[in-house]
């Protein structure tokens, strides 16, 4: 790729991911995270929460930029750090969840001007495949009622981050003509982030560079008794830690943006850091090792594999010396 193009991408797409993760300008009302056992979304969710907190601590106008974080826990049991409100959604009907989520948000009269709100669903799968939920459950309207509460007084602009476990098999469709929940979600989402483990991405790239079949990990290995393949062999070397985010963002204009990013592990930066920590995958030294600099451009003549490596003087001496010896 041309360097000009890369720097252009760097500027624009880093700005975009920063906007998305920090929930600026409500760039994405509904973000779908697709994780798997090989790379769970917990670090990314923690990063969302960290940014929501960091922005409210650091900014000058605190009232304007405070982000209220609600976590709807379908899998989580304990309230994680940094979450303002935790709604345990286990064994609750979708309408109850919506009611509770609306209830935990402080009423807008006391909170001053429009606050931003982040609602995270830690895993949508149980809700989709639950038998408790009746057939009338409509996923889009459920998500919609979370983002846009019916009461007009609540004027918060909320963003919803929904996590979907890709590897949990879903139930067979009740209605063969309706789309699967996943295609529904990907259709509705304004940005879709698929998570990959960095060490796997590196292994796949190494295989691709050698034109080998890309390796598979974990469940895809289809090895008996193996659920998780993620054994961080590089752990300790601190080399290939991090998460690769594959982002597909749909702009308002309809144009899509595709980009690959890397989020370093949380231990690499301080929780209060404001500077962007996410970088482009293409900028990573492990993924794109820097080319060996062209040593001398004038060295054009093809080299033989058999190289004596004599300097000009040595050669002259040799050539000059030989007749003398004879």
């Amino acid at each position, binding site marked *: 790729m041309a360097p000009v193009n890369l720097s252009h991408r760097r500027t624009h797409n880093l700005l975009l991911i920063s906007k998305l993760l920090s929930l600026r300008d409500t760039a994405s009302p509904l973000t779908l995270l697709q*994780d798997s*056992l090989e790379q*769970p979304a*917990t670090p990314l969710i923690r990063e969302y929460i960290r940014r929501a907190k960091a922005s409210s601590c650091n900014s000058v106008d605190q009232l304007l930029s405070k982000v209220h974080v609600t976590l709807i826990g379908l*899998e*989580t*049991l*304990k309230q994680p750090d940094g979450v303002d409100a935790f709604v345990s959604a*286990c*064994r609750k009907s979708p309408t109850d969840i919506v009611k509770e989520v609306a209830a935990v948000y402080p009423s807008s009269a006391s909170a001053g001007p429009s606050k931003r709100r982040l609602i995270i669903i830690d*895993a949508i*799968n*149980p809700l989709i*495949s*639950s*038998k*408790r939920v009746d057939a009338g459950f409509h996923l889009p309207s459920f998500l919609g009622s979370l983002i846009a509460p019916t009461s007009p007084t609540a004027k918060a602009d909320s963003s919803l981050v929904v996590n979907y*476990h*890709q*590897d*949990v*098999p*879903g*139930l*067979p469709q009740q209605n063969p003509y309706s789309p699967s929940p996943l295609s529904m979600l990907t259709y509705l989402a304004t940005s879709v982030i698929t998570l990959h483990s960095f060490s796997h991405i590196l292994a796949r790239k190494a295989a691709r560079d050698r034109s080998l079949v890309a390796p598979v990990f974990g*469940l*895809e290995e*289809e*090895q*008996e*008794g*193996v*659920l*998780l*393949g*993620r*054994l*961080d062999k590089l*752990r300790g070397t601190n080399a290939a830690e991090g998460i690769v985010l594959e982002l597909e963002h749909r702009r308002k204009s309809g144009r899509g943006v595709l980009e690959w990013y890397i989020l370093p*592990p949380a*231990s690499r930066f301080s929780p209060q850091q404001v500077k962007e920590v996410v970088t482009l995958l293409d900028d990573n030294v492990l993924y794109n090792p820097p080319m060996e600099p062209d040593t001398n451009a004038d060295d054009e003549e093809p080299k033989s594999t058999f190289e004596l490596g004599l300097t000009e003087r040595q050669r002259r001496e040799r050539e000059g010396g030989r007749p003398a010896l004879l």
Partner: protein
Amino acid sequence: MPSQPPLPPLLTPYLSSQPESSLTLVSSILGATSNWLVLRFLHASLSASSNSNASFGLEESHNGSKKKVVLVSFLRSWEFWRAEAKRLGLDLARLAGQKQFAFVDGLSELFCAPQAETAATIAPPNAGSPARTTLPLRPQPGAVPGRGPSSVAPVPNNSYAARSQSELGIAKKLHFSGRGIGALDALERDIALVIQQQRSTMDDSDELLLIIDQPDFLLAATGPVMGIGATEMAEWLSALQQNVHATIVTLAADSPLIHNASTSGNQMAAPVESEHAAFAISLAHRARSVMQLRTLETGAARDVSGVLRISRGGGADDSLDERELLYYIQRDGGVTVFGRGES
């Protein structure tokens, strides 16, 4: 006593401490069962405070808090666990008497009509003869010193008299009745009752560990026909999790149960396959650590029984080290655990 220490030193950090409200998933396959690992979990929790002679595998530093264990087994009987624990030097019946351990039997009468229980509850009103009411009272004072009948407190005395000696350690037998979520809720209440009994004799610093052995059997035996699916089972489990300090769940992860329903595979998965896969994988997403047992890929070996891979689950923190170890179960039940290439 086995010649090996009951707790393999390499495994001790994984066995002895479970963070609060954590879930540990132990997956096994047919050729590599998880019994020995469950027994090591039992030993790590129970031996420190009771069997002082067998506790050399454990550091004695944090001995202020006692640990209690509730074991719910769906696939193996009380007799099995008692005999196997004895080989490790762990007397489960005595521990049950001391209220340190409780066994919930999910196997023997799960789908039977609850005969003993109904007989017990119905008997006093209709059998009003004084002989029936006085008879059960007699064994109670006699049995106190050895076995401790208080562990069977919820069961009325009539059935207590009818029980054989070997069943004394069983705190509760589960019965599945009805269908759907209601039936699961009833099971949950029964287990929670036992947990509450254990809790009543606990200090604040004590930790209660819940071990559920192969709840996937319950899912396979009921299934979507009975209105129970993977999601309901997972919710059932997380409701139980909220009562205890930490939870350990064992599951089968044999290839047909996991891979037939995978998204890349064929679409013809049977309901039990897709429900089991969904249950196992969603539990792995919740778990802090996933301990996977499997046989050697290269075939059977004389000095290796299988491979234990410890991975971080979806709910993991950075404190857990991932490892892959080999283990060997000797004829006397002792287990050695070693890294690849070591012996």
